[in-house]
Structures are given as structure tokens and as C-alpha cells.
């Protein structure tokens, strides 16, 4: 798979990360670098602050459900040096996945992490406002997970409009 035209290889990024954030690197390929999920916020902080890597913008954040694990993918962008860095954090836990939030480094993660939480159910520890976004609080399950095939016990269609029964006031 050819990487993007101006994408740094994972190997090139791994060495400086390993020097600054000890035992964070798990694997590096020519496309991405995989980091230990609990260290991801430290790695992003380092990539953001480092003058050579200069990853000042979080261009895209999304998650992939691999049936038994979640891959959270960060596409980082350097505007001054014009290169892209891809960081992956693989969370082995499939029921209650969690990893540190990137919102302390990038404000652009605020809505993107909420979206991942809403649709994939990955918790970002330290996110200031981690709530459902497109769906409502109390929606059964996380639809983008591979094991979500239909809405539990209410197929087809949805249960009643969420505010009717629960007594929760429409906010």
C-alpha cells in the first residue's frame, strides 16, 4: 500500500519517540507507529512539542473495530514542515475499551473523540465532556462495533422516543 505522498514512515518517527517517551513504542511499520495505549497522550504531547516532528494539528482521529480489539488511529499534520504522521493505539479490551484522551494536547480532539465514543464505545479518560453525540444517552449499544447487528430486542425500528418513558427532560 503506498502511503500518502508526504507521510513520514513509522520507523522514522519511532526512534525520537522512544528516546523521549520510554517504552511507549510497540511496533513501527513504514506506514504507522503503534504505541502503548496508556502512553498515547504522552506520545502525542511529545510529537506536538518536538520541533522536528512538529505535529501541531490533529488532522483525523477515528477507530477501527477488529473484532477482538480496537485500533484508534491518529493522523497528525505538521503545517510548517508539511508532513503527516500516523499513530495507532491498539486497545486489546473489547467490552470496555479505554485510553487517555488527546484533548489535553489538541482541542480538535474534543468532537472527534466524542464521535468515537458515541459510535464505537471507546472511552477517552480525561475528556472533559464525553457524552453521546449523534445518538442519545441510553441508546442500546455502539452501532459501529462489528458485533452490533441490530438494536437489541427492538428490531426492527427503535424503541419509543427516548424522552417519553425515561422521564428525562429534553435538554
Amino acid at each position, binding site marked *: *500500500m*503506498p502511503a*500518502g*505522498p*508526504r507521510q513520514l514512515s513509522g520507523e522514522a518517527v519511532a526512534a525520537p519517540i522512544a528516546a523521549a517517551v520510554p517504552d511507549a513504542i510497540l511496533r513501527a511499520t513504514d*506506514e504507522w507507529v503503534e504505541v502503548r495505549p496508556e502512553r498515547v497522550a504522552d506520545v502525542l504531547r511529545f510529537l506536538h512539542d518536538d520541533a522536528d516532528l512538529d505535529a*501541531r*494539528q*490533529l*488532522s*483525523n482521529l*477515528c477507530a*477501527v*473495530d477488529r473484532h477482538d480489539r480496537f485500533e484508534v*488511529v491518529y*493522523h497528525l499534520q505538521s*503545517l510548517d514542515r*508539511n508532513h503527516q504522521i*500516523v499513530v495507532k493505539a491498539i486497545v486489546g479490551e473489547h467490552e470496555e475499551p479505554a485510553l487517555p484522551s488527546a484533548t489535553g494536547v*489538541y*482541542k*480538535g*480532539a*474534543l*468532537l*472527534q473523540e466524542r*464521535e468515537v465514543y458515541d*459510535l464505537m464505545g471507546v472511552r477517552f479518560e480525561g475528556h472533559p465532556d464525553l457524552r453521546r*453525540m*449523534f*445518538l*442519545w444517552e441510553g441508546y442500546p449499544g455502539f*452501532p*459501529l462495533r462489528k458485533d452490533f447487528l441490530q438494536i437489541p430486542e427492538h428490531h426492527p425500528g427503535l424503541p419509543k422516543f427516548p424522552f417519553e418513558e425515561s422521564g428525562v427532560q429534553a*435538554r
Partner: protein
Amino acid sequence: MTTATEPYVLNIGPQHPSTHGVFRLRVVMDGERIQDVEMVVGYLHRSMEKLAEERTYTQNIPFTDRADYLAAMSGNLGYCLAVERLAGVEVPERASCLRVIFAELQRIASHSMANGTFVNDAGAWQTPLMYMFRERERILDLFEMTCGARLTTNYMRIGGVAFDPPDEFYPAIESLVDELPERIEEYAELLVDNEILLARGRGVGVISAEDAINGSLAGPMLRGSGVPWDLRKAEPYCGYDRFDFEIPVGRQGDAYDRFLVRLEEVRQSTKIIRQALDGLPSGPHKTQTPLALRPDPGEAYARVEGPRGELGFYVVSDGGSAPFRFHIRAPSLINLSLLREMAIGASLPDAIVALGSVDIVVGEIDR
């Protein structure tokens, strides 16, 4: 926090002209000042990303029309580039050039709409918008001529474009490109340095360059804050490096600067279309690719400079005929990351202008 009056909650939308679609702002007001703001989205959520996992790569192209329905061509283009990168498909030169022409026509149509609704929000009720619809209408006519649809075009294909434009397309686009500069000057004369627009737009919704970068803003939002960042220059796709154009930037990062950036981008797009038409190569408009394409396992992220900013598509393949994961990086949603910073402390009418200057498309926010 001490407040001058008792705070109250005001709901703007989901059905309200200033929210440009079914989008709700829940605003806590202290008198006329905004204390807190929260956006409520999801009214248009169609779960495209899940649906796409059960359809072939080609069948997914119409989703990209319906995400950002004001810039269907840009969505088509970004998605096709992602799949082409994933599957290693080569695109003929003529197809790339046609893609540039249609993407830039789409940018003009979308920016006309954005600037028209922006001045609408600022109080110039409907007149400028209706003027700008003249050009947009002619662009949609060109789309209809070529692919039969005006809004949800479904024009690009993996490996090229669906159709070669018909013969009547060329005189129509020639006359449009000849007239556009004159028309843009007409709008500039009407709106630029207009006292009311200055009073409503200057100093409203200000975002510093540092914040804009950190908040993942893109497109006219980022350039309005003075960051000369455009993917057409930074990461040229479809041969954009062959064209001569400039990246306009704002100086103060306010709503008015974003308006000016969009106006200038329309001028630059006209320039690009003129160059692309003059150098349109002959040859095939599409390479043959199998309808049930099965790329090798892997992933690709491709992005284009859409009218609202970085429109990215992240596609993961597991070797099957449907994508394993299909993610749209939606600039309309991510440009709202700094909504609180723009709105808190502002008066309600200013917040409406700030939101108008973001140029959201709710279909793309909710997907």
C-alpha cells in the same frame, strides 16, 4: 459566577433559519450575553459509516454525495482518491483534469451559497443570496448536463469519472468562466467594505492562528485566521501543482475575514478552471476497474481540499468487496470544535454571525 440577570436557556433550532439545517444550539443566556453554548446534533444521522460496510466500493460513492450535499463533487473525489490509493488504481490524465474542473465548479457553487447565507445571517436578507444563486444555478446546469443530477451528482468513479461531458458542455462552461470574474466584482462592489457587513462581521468569532491549528480547523476557517494552508498546494492531488493559483489568507481571523477568503477563493477557482479547460488532454475518461473491487488488506487515508476544508476519507480493507471500515473526516463537524470559544461572551446576534461564518452543512456533521 455573578450574572446581571438570572440565566436562562434558549434553544436555537433544530428548525431555525440561522442553523442552516436541523442543528440545535442550546444557549445559556445572561441577558443578551452568551454564558454557555452546547450543540446538539444527530437529527440527520444516517449511519453512513455502518451502511458502507455492507456495500461494494462503487456502491458507496452515493454516500459521499449525501454527506456534504452542497459539495457532492468534492466528496466523490476524496472517496475515489482514497479507494484508488488503497487498490493502486491509475487515473487517466483527462479524468484528473475533469475532476479538477468539477471540483472547482463545486467550490464556486458552495462558496456562493456560503457567502450568500452568511450575509443573510448578517442581515442582508435574501437579496445577495438570490444574486449568488444565479451562478450556482448555471453550475448545477453544467452538472445536470454531464451526469444527470444537480445536487447528488455521483459523478466520479474509481479510476476516473463516469461520463465525458457532452458537446454542449464546452460552450456553456466557456461562457460561464468568461462571465464569472465580472459577476464576482459585482458582488465585491455590493458587499466588500459594506458598512453594515463590516459592523456585523469585524471582530466577531475571532480565532487566533494558534487556536485554529490546535482546534483542527481547516479550509476557509484556518485560512481566515492567517494560516496559508491549502491541501491543493501542500499535497497536490489530481495534478493541482500544474495550475497557477494563490491561497488567500485573512489577517484578523474573524467572520468577515472568512467571508473575504471565500470570495477570493471563487476568483482563484475561476482561474484554475480556465487553465484546466485550456489544457484539457484528450484520451479516456476512465480506466476499467472491476465493479466488485477487492483491494488487498490494508488502509488508505486520502484527503482533498473541499469547500469547507480538509475532507478526508479513511478506508480500511480486509480483502473483501466491501470496506472493512469507512470513515469520513467531516470538516463541518470538526470546524465546530471551537464553537464555545467563538460564542461565549458574545451577544446572541454575533454568535449567529459567527456560526454562519463557519459554513456548516448538517448532512456532513451527522453523516
